[in-house]
């Protein structure tokens, strides 16, 4: 899965990653953050991804950047997931879009690169009536959980 992606910088904790999207709208700072959650006696990580707003220096995932580099941006997020799981091989990562359309977009990309993703990761899809089940292409999911294969 050597897709073209942006160079990114990593916080020394390996929990936060930053990179810049470059396109017609200029350079847009992006943040990927993995946050440890302990719940019901288990630990997992939540994946957050958004833009840093210039106006207030806070992250926002609801803006549509439209910098004509969506594929490269998502490939960079995928690269940070790989980097993170190399550092934390036992981690389970929970991810969902900030809106249903974003979640659909993520699912489309998982479908598109399923052969490459499934070689590296165990992926689970969350559906309202079945909970988490092993990911299957062309099913509708509301969130995902990812873990590196052993």
């Amino acid at each position, binding site marked *: *899965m*050597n*897709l073209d*992606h*942006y*160079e*990114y*910088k*990593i*916080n*020394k*904790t*390996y*929990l*936060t*990653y*930053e990179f810049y999207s470059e396109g017609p709208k200029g350079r847009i700072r992006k*943040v990927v*953050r993995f*946050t440890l*959650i302990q*719940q*019901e006696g*288990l630990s*997992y990580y*939540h994946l*957050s991804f*958004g833009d840093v707003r210039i106006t207030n220096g*806070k*992250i*926002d*995932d609801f803006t549509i950047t439209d910098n004509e580099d969506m594929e490269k941006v998502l490939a960079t997020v995928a*690269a*940070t997931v*790989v*980097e993170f799981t*190399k550092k934390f091989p*036992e981690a*389970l990562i*929970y991810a*969902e879009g*900030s809106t249903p359309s974003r979640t659909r977009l993520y699912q489309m990309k998982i479908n598109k690169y399923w052969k490459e993703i499934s*070689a*590296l990761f*165990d992926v*689970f899809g*969350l559906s309202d009536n079945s*909970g*988490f*089940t*092993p990911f299957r292409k062309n099913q509708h999911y509301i*969130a995902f*959980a990812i*873990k590196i*294969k052993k």
Partner: protein
Amino acid sequence: MRTKNVTMLPKGKKEFPKLKGVVSSEVKDWGSDPFILKGVENARKMIAKYGLPKEWVEEAKRNNDKKEGKSH
């Protein structure tokens, strides 16, 4: 005997993609950003409602038992 200078992955071993990450002190933590905290809260609610993948939960419990020296 001449040998070729090649690196081969063991059969069945995953090949990791080439990555472009550099550790930098310029990257702040962002853990207390409202957007991050809201996402974490949403995740907690979803997991409270649906639970985690049962395959992973079973594996995590087995690993915890191993660490604690329990045997079955």
